[in-house]
């Protein structure tokens, strides 16, 4: 994945809680065997509604999605992350993320930013009022800032996850450093464990 250090841009306010992965990318889209082209499917059922926030001209070009709590609940489909990235989002801000979605984000370089419910609400309201609001996220420092509204908040990632973002590390490459330990572990596994053969 490519390194992510500082993100600056406009945001889209998605004033909903429990946004599930079936909404982020409906199952029809899961039939594709490629990793690209999912942006068109992002929130596709909601986008049919003209008043849906992603259809609002004022938010075109936004790179940050601000959403209600419990974002990404539901299935393990990484397609949800591919769709957000392909559409142009680089970060999602919410007060709570579902575990698998969060983990999928970190594998693909979509920055999941967990802030307090108060900060999330403040940002949702501020972005809705001023679509041009400039937001800056600094991965290494763990900060979210919107100087125009004097907002400065922090977020935490596991230190190792921060390093992976900042350096753009590939997990498989990291794990293969431990190949010898893997082989050693394999030799100690109980013989009764099943084989699929």
């Amino acid at each position: 994945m490519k390194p992510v250090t500082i993100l600056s841009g406009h945001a889209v306010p998605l004033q909903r809680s429990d946004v599930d992965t079936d909404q982020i990318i409906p199952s029809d889209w899961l039939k594709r065997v490629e990793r690209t082209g999912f942006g068109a499917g992002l929130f596709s059922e909601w986008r049919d509604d003209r008043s849906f926030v992603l259809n609002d001209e004022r938010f075109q070009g936004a790179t940050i999605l601000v959403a209600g709590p419990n974002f990404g609940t539901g299935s393990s489909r990484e397609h949800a992350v591919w769709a957000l990235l392909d559409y142009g989002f680089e970060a999602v801000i919410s007060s709570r993320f579902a575990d698998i979605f969060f983990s999928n984000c970190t594998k693909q370089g979509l920055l999941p930013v967990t802030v307090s419910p108060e900060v999330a609400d403040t940002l949702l309201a501020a972005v809705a009022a001023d679509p041009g609001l400039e937001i800056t996220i600094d991965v290494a420092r763990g900060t979210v800032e919107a100087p125009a509204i004097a907002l400065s908040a922090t977020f935490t990632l596991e230190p190792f996850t921060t390093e992976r973002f900042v350096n753009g590390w590939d997990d498989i490459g990291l794990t293969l450093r431990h190949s010898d330990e893997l082989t050693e572990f394999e030799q100690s596994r109980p013989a009764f464990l099943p084989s699929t053969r």
Partner: protein
Amino acid sequence: MSPRTMAEKVWDAHLVHRTDGEPDLLYIDLHLVHEVTSPQAFDGLRLAGRTVRRPDLTIATADHNVPTTALDLPIEDPISKKQLEVLTANCAEFGITCYNRGDENQGIVHVIGPELGLTQPGMTIVCGDSHTSTHGAFGALAFGIGTSEVEHVLATQSLPLIRPKTMAITVTGALRPGVTAKDLVLAIIGAIGTGGGIGYIVEYRGDAIANLSMEGRMTVCNMSIEAGARAGMIAPDATTIEYLRGKAHAPTGAAFDEAAAAWLAFATDEGATFDREVVIDASTVEPQVSWGTNPAQVAPISATVPDPEAIADPAERDAAARALSYMGLTAGMPIRSIDVQTVFIGSCTNSRIEDLRLAASVMEGRTVAEGRRVLVVPGSHRVKRQAEAEGLHEIFTAAGAEWREPGCSMCLAMNPDKLAPGERSASTSNRNFEGRQGRGGRTHLVSPAVAAATAILGHFATPEDLQ
């Protein structure tokens, strides 16, 4: 050593490497693969020139896209067809056993693992599917992963993971007659919420859990993810051991006894502590019906549709109001008064033989309500054969239900089994998200018993209502 929980024991037994400040590297004993979340992972391997480290610990099945109509009919959707072909080709290229449509071992990935005996206590099991939590019913640590992680496991048979916290959900007392494992897990999700389990591995314990069959335990663990928990686990006991005895991939002879002793040792030690504890009294649980668009929006069947105005939390109030509008319901309607057009009995939550027996016992000698569509979709070919040997299919078809070939089917509507916009279903599956069963479709989650009774009366009902 200080007392440990089951989750901690399984974790420790699979630790390949630990460095402070980094995730632990855990060995994976079994990797289940299906057509939807794997193509991009195999592509990644090819691009990097990597192979599958342990094809002998990997198994694939076609389930999400397969049509459930007769096997000799072609797959009409060209994109589904291609995805299934890509799975077959990838498995052939990388040496992975794959159960394709029509294979005697084919079925929903979370149904075939246990029935083949590949799912055993104390194992680490992953799959690119969130309902991998199902396998925790055996005391395995089993969880869903994304496609990048699928690729990682294919390449290294391991995963870097940050250790989750542990939660005990103790279900005391006994379930009332007519109340099933599905009702119990829906009530648990209703109590702790869709986010209640985030960051935790849940262990279900207590008398009501110990008294469940393996099928019932799988139903409970299956829906752990609906409460946000990545995994759910139940301690292995005599029920677990008897279930595994004689299964195709279970050990045999002396190895079985050796394994059984090792399995039991995974149970949580006396005195081990959990990060969070929840206690639920089983005797208070009634048959449940979900009324909203997330699985925590659920109520006892005897209740009425709730009034969003009465919900204190603003986000939940807003979500409830939006759900009622999507579902076409009004606050205060008795749940029993809601008419359904379609009943779906299937999915990895409730498509095992015991579920089908229960549904058949309710439908036997009765007729599906006028104009209702009822789909019964067994979880695997093995379940289907067993059901047919017991004559269950004849009970279903005589009542007016459709008896289908195995697959995920209307659980997520990737195949032709879908709801039309506005169509309302009673479904034994696990997700009632907007559009989950087809665009604009309205899903109510229920147990197989409630689904079957609802099929007969045409509105939400329990088997007692048929008397």
